[in-house]
């Protein structure tokens, strides 16, 4: 069974600084997708960034980037120039590459950006 582990229950960062959230996963698949989702206090989960396992290049979306280490099964999220609106729960998620493969989520990391 696939598992996703986020070892940092809580993190904080000063506004404008950089923070990295950790995620490791376990799978025997060679092709899969990894995601970071953000859940602000409004509760709605929002996709932050997506990585396809067959791509060696790390995904980036504006201030968000990942460090994908396939051999180590590690998928960390870096947030640059942190903003107050980045305060949220962040979930790492995994799914196999085939349709109908449900997402497996980590336990989440609560990130607080301080002014």
């Amino acid at each position: 069974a696939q598992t996703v582990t986020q070892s940092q229950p809580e993190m904080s960062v000063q506004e404008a600084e950089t923070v990295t959230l950790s995620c490791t996963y376990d799978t025997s698949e060679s092709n899969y997708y990894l995601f970071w989702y953000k859940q602000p206090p409004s509760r709605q989960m929002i996709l932050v960034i997506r990585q396809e396992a067959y791509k060696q290049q790390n995904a980036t979306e504006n201030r968000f980037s990942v460090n994908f280490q396939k051999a180590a099964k590690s998928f960390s999220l870096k947030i640059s120039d942190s903003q107050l609106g980045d305060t949220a729960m962040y979930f790492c998620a995994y799914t196999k590459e085939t349709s109908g493969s449900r997402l497996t989520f980590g336990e989440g990391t609560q990130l607080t950006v301080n002014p």
Partner: protein
Amino acid sequence: GAGVSQSPSNKVTEKGKDVELRCDPISGHTALYWYRQRLGQGLEFLIYFQGNSAPDKSGLPSDRFSAERTGESVSTLTIQRTQQEDSAVYLCASSLELAGVYTGELFFGEGSRLTVL
């Protein structure tokens, strides 16, 4: 609608009562998921619908939980004889899953917060 819509947003009920939670997915999305999120925890898979295929019910925690979906539209999650441990946020998500077009991305609603007294 533009996004996934869930109702009610909040529901308080007494132990032993039945509750129904509704999810209206993004129009055209073939797949629909229900997840449960207990306070401060991650998402627990409950059930998955894809088109006209038999649903994947493997995540339902007990026979008190059931869900239905009408075609590729609205879904209802029903919890019978609610217990205090059922208190959680129930999240619905939809996605477009067609042969050759699968990104794995889910679009979530804002959830229904259930409190069982």
